[in-house]
Structures are given as structure tokens and as C-alpha cells.
């Protein structure tokens, strides 16, 4: 065995590669002396068996697919779709060029947004009103606790009214509604966290959905409603 900075690694490697099955006395003795080595070997063997099971699964599906009935409509679809894609003009934009352009746009937007942010506690001055800008949550959520939903909204001077958050599923059914929110938490940033009568039971029900959408609307006292574009929220896979 070669020396190694991780004791047991070479030995385990040798075993995973099959020396144990040959009954090599040196290997068997080393294993008998070290229960940790045995435990690690069992883990790796299980992983290898899992890979074999995935392979069998894939092979059986290929068999079923080969033996499956011919579907002329689906076959025709294959030709139509791929020929259409092949005839589509190729974009002169390379992915890296698009990424750089998107990065520059983001930097410009952040700079512009920072400049327009009113001081905390000030009255709402300047900035265009219009659709509220959704800030958080934007990505994967831990479903064990209700998250804070944050958005930015800078009303026109003299505007009076409230914001509302609505959560709904991908079929457009409403899941949860915030009620009237009249005060920002700071500057132009507003927040709603499902609490009180809507949580935690409703939040837990909601968290069972793998993904849902949220949208903020501003409702002026004169009845004018402006809504953000809906945005999807994903839950952590381990929490589903």
C-alpha cells in the first residue's frame, strides 16, 4: 500500500476496486482491525449498488422505449421540431457576451437604485411611482419558518394608500394575502412576513407546494392599483 495523508484511503480504494473479494489476507486483517474502515467500505458499496440500480433502471427504460408502440404523430413531431430549430438563424451573441452585458446592466441598475434611495425616516420624496420592485425572497427558501417578503416602492409626493402581497400557485389560485401594509420598514423598502392569524399553520400548508408566486400591488386611496410582475419562489428540495 502506498503511504497517504488520509489513513485508510489507499486500503479502501483497493477494496472498492475488488481486492476484498479475492480474500487477500492482508486486506481482510486490516479490515478486521478497523471498524471505521469497515463502515466506510459499507457506505461506498451501497453507493456503488445504487449506481448499479440506476443503471438497471435506465437499461430497462431503454428496453421499454424500444419495444414501445410506434407513434407516427410523435415521430413526425421530432422531424418538424428539429428541422425548425436547424433553420432558425443563429444568434450572433455568444453566451459570455450576454453574461457580460447582463452584468453591466446589473451594475448600472444598482448604481441608479442606490442614488434614488431616500434617507431612512425621511418623507417620500422623488423617484417615480409605478410598479413596486420585488427584492426578497428571490431564491430557495427554508420552509421551516415564514420568510420576509421585501420590495421597494417610492410613491409620488402626496400619494396615499397601501401595499398588498398576494401569494398564489401556478394555477393562479390565491394561497395567502397580506392585508393592508401602510408603512415601509426603512426608506423605500417594505416588508411583510406571514405572522399572526395567517401563520404558522397556513405557511406550513403553503410550504408543501414546491414553488409558488408572489406579487405586490400598490393601492392608492383613490383606487389606482399598480402591480409588480409575479415572481416564482422556490423551496429548498430537502424541505419538500
Amino acid at each position, binding site marked *: 500500500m502506498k503511504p497517504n495523508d488520509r489513513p485508510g484511503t489507499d486500503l479502501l480504494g483497493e477494496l472498492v476496486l475488488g481486492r476484498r473479494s479475492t480474500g487477500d489476507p492482508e486486506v481482510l486483517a486490516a479490515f478486521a482491525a478497523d471498524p471505521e474502515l469497515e463502515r466506510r467500505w459499507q457506505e461506498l458499496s451501497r453507493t456503488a449498488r445504487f449506481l*448499479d440500480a440506476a443503471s438497471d433502471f435506465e437499461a430497462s427504460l431503454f428496453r421499454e422505449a424500444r419495444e414501445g408502440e410506434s407513434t407516427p*404523430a410523435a415521430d413526425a413531431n421530432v422531424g418538424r421540431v428539429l428541422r425548425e430549430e436547424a433553420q432558425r438563424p443563429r444568434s450572433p451573441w455568444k453566451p459570455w457576451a450576454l453574461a457580460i452585458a447582463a452584468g453591466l446592466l446589473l451594475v448600472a441598475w444598482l448604481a441608479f437604485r442606490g442614488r434614488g434611495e431616500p434617507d431612512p425616516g425621511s418623507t417620500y420624496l422623488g423617484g417615480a411611482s409605478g410598479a413596486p420592485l420585488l427584492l426578497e425572497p428571490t431564491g430557495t427558501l427554508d420552509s421551516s419558518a415564514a420568510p420576509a417578503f421585501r420590495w421597494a416602492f417610492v410613491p409620488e409626493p402626496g400619494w396615499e394608500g397601501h401595499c398588498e402581497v398576494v401569494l398564489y400557485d401556478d394555477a393562479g389560485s390565491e394561497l395567502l394575502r397580506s392585508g393592508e401594509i401602510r408603512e415601509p420598514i426603512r426608506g423605500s423598502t417594505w416588508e411583510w412576513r406571514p405572522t399572526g392569524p395567517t401563520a404558522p399553520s397556513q405557511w406550513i400548508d403553503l410550504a408543501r407546494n414546491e414553488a409558488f408566486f408572489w406579487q405586490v400591488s400598490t393601492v392608492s386611496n383613490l383606487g389606482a392599483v399598480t402591480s409588480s410582475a409575479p415572481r416564482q419562489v422556490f423551496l429548498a428540495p430537502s424541505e419538500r
Partner: protein
Amino acid sequence: MRRQLSSAEETLVPPDTLLVRRVLRRDPEAIELLIQRMKFVPRMLSALNARMGRPLDEHELLDLGQEVLILIWKKLPRFDGKTSLESWGFRVCYFCILNAARKARHRSVVGLGLEADQLTGGSRPDPWEFEAVYHGLDRLSPGESAVLRLKHFEELTFEEIGERLSIPTNTAKTRYYRALCNLQELLSAEEVALR
């Protein structure tokens, strides 16, 4: 600048990689060949759908087939030739139908209080079970993932893997062992119940 491959080097390139290169150059003959090969997509989707207890109806399956083909077309430049086009396409089919089935399940089954394991019938392997292993393979480095696939999915020996990847046999063994350790850690992190 990328140099042109000599004809001797071209012979070392897997045939599916050559086919994909010709398709990307819009060679009409290669495109027709690809169409013939990709006819496995609707059949594979249909087989997967049957395994999952038919969460998608005929029209949804046809729409999904179209989505999968467009996705395959977009991903073609990233095809690395480590597996056949069909094995590579299978992964796209698999993830797409799982996502579509989740949406369908969300619409119709979760509301009735049924669990995922009730969606599948019989004792055949449950398609949902292998999601973690495929995700894990995708998260490994391409070299490690290729060795695991060649060893377990194509059942090659280490000598054959070395030849296929142009690496010494011992390197193939070391890479296999390291890949298995890394995959095991990924699966443990996802708390997959290994069988």
C-alpha cells in the same frame, strides 16, 4: 484559435461527437441522422410516463416531447461524447418529465392527499428514486462522472475505461474511487436512503 483536427485525430473522436459537430455546422445529412436518432425521445417519455402512473395525458406528453427536443437542440454544443446521444438525451427526458409530473401531481394529486409513492405501481423501480443519483453525477467533475458512468452504466473494465478516456488504467481506478467517495458524500448530504 481552435485548430482543425487531422483525419487521424478525427478517428479518435467518438462517432456521436462527430455527428453533433456536423449537425452544429448545419449539415443536412447529419440533421436527418439526428432526427432518426431522436425518435427515441417520445418513446422514452412514454415509457417514463407509464412507469410514473401516467401523470401526463397524450397531449401533455406531445407538448413535453417538443420541449425536450428544443432543449436537446440548445444543449447540443455541450454534448461531450462521453456517452451515446441516447444516454445523454435520456437525462434530459428524465429531468423534464419529473418536473412536468411534479406540476401535474401538484395540480391533481397532492390536493387529494396522496403521496408520491402511491403514484407508482408494481415492484418496478420508482423513477423518483434515482433523481438524487443523477443530480449527484451532474455535480461531480466531468472526469469523475464519466468514470462512474462508464463503470456502472456501460459496465466497462478499468482497462477499457482507460482506453476510452485516454488515461492509464491506474488513473482510471484512482479516479473511480475518488468519484465514488465524492458521490457518496453528495448523496449523504441529500440524505438519500441508499439501497
